[in-house]
């Protein structure tokens, strides 16, 4: 069972505040999901040496070229001297 502390940790690294109701019902729901994906443990270790077909081939990527948007649309007035304003880091 996912403990209260584990759920708090997951919420913290995911940067999501949970409501009281969510904090109450999520442990059981997440447990069921984790129990379900535990089926993957049955996979034999020999099976896991298969070639990873999703591997990215970096020489196939296009060059990273910076292009300006035709129109920069910020929905809130949070710009200052052409920069976006964000909350303080610390």
């Amino acid at each position, binding site marked *: 069972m996912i403990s209260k502390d584990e*759920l708090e940790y*997951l*919420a*913290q*690294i*995911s*940067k*999501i*505040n*949970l*409501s009281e109701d*969510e904090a109450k019902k*999520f442990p059981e*729901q*997440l447990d*069921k*999901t*984790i129990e*379900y*994906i*535990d*089926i*993957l*443990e*049955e*996979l034999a270790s020999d*099976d*896991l*040496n*298969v*070639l*990873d*077909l*999703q591997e990215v081939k970096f020489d*196939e*990527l*296009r060059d990273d070229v910076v292009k300006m*948007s*035709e*129109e*920069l*649309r*910020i*929905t*809130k007035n*949070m710009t200052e001297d052409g920069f*976006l*304003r*964000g*909350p*303080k*880091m*610390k």
Partner: protein
Amino acid sequence: MSSLHDLLAHEVVEGIKEGLFTAEEYVSSLIKTIEDVESKLNSFITLDTVGALSSAKLIDRKIKENEDIGYLGGVAVGIKDNISTKDIRTTCASKILEDYVPSYDATVIRNLKQNGAIILGKLNLDEFGMGSTTEYSRYYPTHNPWNLDYVPGGSSGGCGAAVAAGECTVSLGSDTGGSIRCPASFCSVVGLKPTYGRVSRYGLISYANSLEQIGPICRSVKDIALIMNIISGKDNSDNTSMSSSPITINNKLDKFDIAIVKELINDGDHGVTGTIYSTSDKFKEIGCTCDEISIKNLHYALPSYYTLASAEASSNLARYDNIRYGFDLPIEEYKWDTYFSNVRKNFGEEVKRRILIGSYVLSSGYYSKYYLKARSLRSLLKLELLKLFKKYDLLIGPTMPILPFKFGEKIDDPIKMYLVDINTVIANLAGIPAISLPIGFSNGLPIGLQMMAAPFEEQKLIDVSHALENTINIQRRPNLT
């Protein structure tokens, strides 16, 4: 002639070109249908009737001046609300993006517009595409036009319902684990998930980018081919996109070798299973062979899918930080982490659950236990399927092993809800194309046949679907009066 809102896309283009009706008359007919049925269905999140009528008038002017109106001249399209549309609000059915108006069109939208299509509005979905019923939309659920007490499927539920009900002629959805095929099956319309890379994902708001593809939902196979030829192709803005041959409609069918996948049909609803087997007899009638086979690794497909999709979701949705768009929440009183967490509490419960599971499977100690195993399984499954495609042209089974169900039936149990996707996630994991074709009804509720082919073999799916569509005559329009 049928009512204008009943016409198929290719009939609309021909009718406008031949002067049988104007684009304005046709779009007005769709708007009238929307006025009549939308309060029952809730297919749309945002309508752009003013823009659609103005685009229709432009098409009519071009006709008068003998100008080319394009391959889709005048066809009204509904767009899933996770595909970016310039100047039309794009919410992903999330409160986080409730005021977001993109400054650019997704590549598929640009292609549609360049070919004369008219954007009628944005269609409902489960928040960020995470769900199979539209019950996770943060606005309202969409209702199934065949029975309003039942879910339309998801996540592209608005796309399926709107096309089935004649609110738009075709729609574009996205499919991460079955999100085009599930509503196509539940709403008795045709839906195609293309090969990964056939259609550009530029402008599709990402949930799980290694799995998802944009694809069409239509009322005929011919329209699916028409739309696919407009939206497919290499796009420099999406490095995973590739060029492909155009799809044609052939009236003569090659002899195809087809296999029913036992695991897709086992434990299914009796009505669904019976209809699939009677359809397999029709395959023989149209000159194909039909065997039954087993896929060894299917047992692991759904847990792998939810591991990978949640991991990618937790990464993709990290961008919602409320700095560039979002709520009106002043930054002065907060530090970075608290501001970020406070804003993101506005995600719906299902999105939060998937982000948390994604963080879990990617965290130290669990990465190799879940994420790496899921990736390996994905490769194993793809290799097994490619081997099968050397022997068989198509692998088939029910799109959904169950019939549409009532609202609220599965909402409190995430695993019950995830199991709805058990037959569809295979195509996303393997990156192969898959189509859902309506083949009948049980207790008045629609049943879809899923057919899967090797990568970039959409032509085979279209050939067999077109032949079957002509053989199976099923009711096309729900009665919503």
